């Protein structure tokens, strides 16, 4: 019997090799791929919770957990696709036009992926038009817009407007060091999160609301 709790522990510890080995073992033992994926999702949720609550998880710990999951879950992807299991939700994410900073946005992507979202990462310096286009093309449920700088943060407003124009129903989430709750509200975003783990929670809350 494959040990899924050990897989959860390996992802949580950021132990890439063990996570990959245990995933392969579970596949070989015939465990359904969505169950294996769930074991990893549980781990990333816990990593995110500890990060948000300052319980010993910092950016390096989050990164190695996310990379362990990424490598291990790559083994599952063909199996998930073959069995018709696809992520329930799609998130389009990117850093706002004029801004090249991406670690916050990448962490949000990792946490959303950990929560089993399909991620369309538009990278950095993303124009409002590109956000809008990707929202339409991928039928995004969540659009995540990031900015590190006071000078680029103001450009989030144009991105929000462009997305609204093509899809009034998409839930728009904003974040980044200078961004506040008030600013999010002012520019018409649906949600704000102060860190990557909270972003994944807020995204899920917005979709069930």
């Amino acid at each position: 019997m494959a040990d899924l709790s050990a897989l959860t522990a390996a992802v949580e510890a950021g132990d890439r090799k063990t996570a990959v080995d245990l995933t392969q073992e579970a596949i070989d033992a015939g465990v359904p791929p969505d169950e294996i994926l769930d074991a990893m999702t549980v781990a990333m949720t816990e990593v995110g919770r500890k990060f948000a609550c300052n319980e010993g998880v910092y950016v390096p710990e989050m990164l190695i957990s996310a990379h362990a999951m990424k490598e291990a879950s790559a083994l599952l992807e063909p199996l998930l696709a073959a069995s018709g299991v696809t992520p329930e939700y799609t998130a389009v994410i990117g850093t706002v036009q004029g801004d090249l900073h991406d670690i916050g946005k990448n962490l949000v992507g990792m946490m959303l992926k950990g929560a089993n979202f399909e991620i369309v990462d538009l990278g950095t310096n993303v124009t409002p038009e590109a956000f809008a286009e990707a929202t339409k093309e991928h039928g995004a449920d969540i659009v995540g817009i990031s900015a590190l700088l006071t000078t680029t943060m103001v450009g989030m407003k144009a991105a929000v407007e462009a997305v609204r124009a093509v899809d009034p129903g998409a839930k728009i989430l904003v974040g980044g060091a200078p961004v506040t709750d008030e600013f999010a509200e002012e520019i018409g975003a649906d949600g704000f999160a102060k860190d990557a783990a909270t972003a994944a929670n807020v995204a899920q809350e917005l979709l069930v609301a």
Partner: protein
Amino acid sequence: MRHRDRVAMALAREEPDRCPMQISFTPEFAERLRADLGVRGMLNVARGGEHNPHGGGNTYELERAIDSDLILSSVGWANNYYAGHDTYTDEWGVTWKEHPYETPFGTGHYTEMVGFPLAQDDALDSYVPPDPTRPELYDDSERVIREYRDEYWVVGVTVTTIWETAWALRGYERLLMDLLTNPELADRILDIPFRYHLAAAERLAAMGVDMLWTGDDIGSQKGMLMSPDTWRRFLKPRMAELVSRVKAINPDLKIAYHTDGDVREVIGELIEIGIDILNPVQPACMDPAELKRDYGDELLFWGSIDEQKTLPFGTPEDVSAEIRRRVETIGAGGGLILGPTHHVQLDTPLENFWAMIDTIRETRYT
């Protein structure tokens, strides 16, 4: 009162006539200020007249015109910020790209790192770092000490001392993960900028700067970037060595440490290794009054004027009120050099900038 006496008094925890200040600006803000002041002449001869926010090569017209009390002279990797246009590669092999942003006051540019010479593990074996003993690196600091030290408090700058230069060599996420997954490799990479900036810091100390400005961004808006244990393993011992070696050259030299973000988890340990001054004290994530209460007997402060909200988006009244509040709290009894928490950027209205300068100049301690 001479500028340097004002700073010396504040750092001795006495109240001078007014709180000393140090203000830096991005190149485009410097241009705007130059036009506003009608200042003529080159701001930085070596850069074809373009201003260096860290002070390497500047001619200091603006700093003197606004009544700044400190003059900075920088030796080290950080001088490569704003060092070129379009795409350029610095002498460390880091590739930069100029990147525009729009503000109500025109188009500004950041320079961002896009190419990392040690991205591949094996690149380290053949990597040759720049030589910090080249005499010409210190020509500018010699001039600054000669021309300005009688009047101003001269700061030798070796910021991006360890961590930031190291990740510029390796890549940010890669080095963050190396700390946990490949510590030996991380040590080798961290040693490259550490050795370089240690040599520069020792040289600047021997030349007679009044203060040394070191630092690395180890904080984020919500807390430490890496765990305190990771910081203790990789960065604390190196900083401790730098501080002790520089103070062996000049025991009176003040050492400032720059880090963005909320770093309350390690402030006690920065004091323990001999850091005298914390910069920039980002008020959007650490309460300056609380820091004064908790650490004011052992630590001096530099910065504390909010650049996330007040300077770019506030009113001149907001700016003035914040400065008066700082003088009364974190600045009470001295121990503070006022300054914005980052170089003033193009998004700051000139009215706010002048409200900052005028309020600092007019707010009397007694």
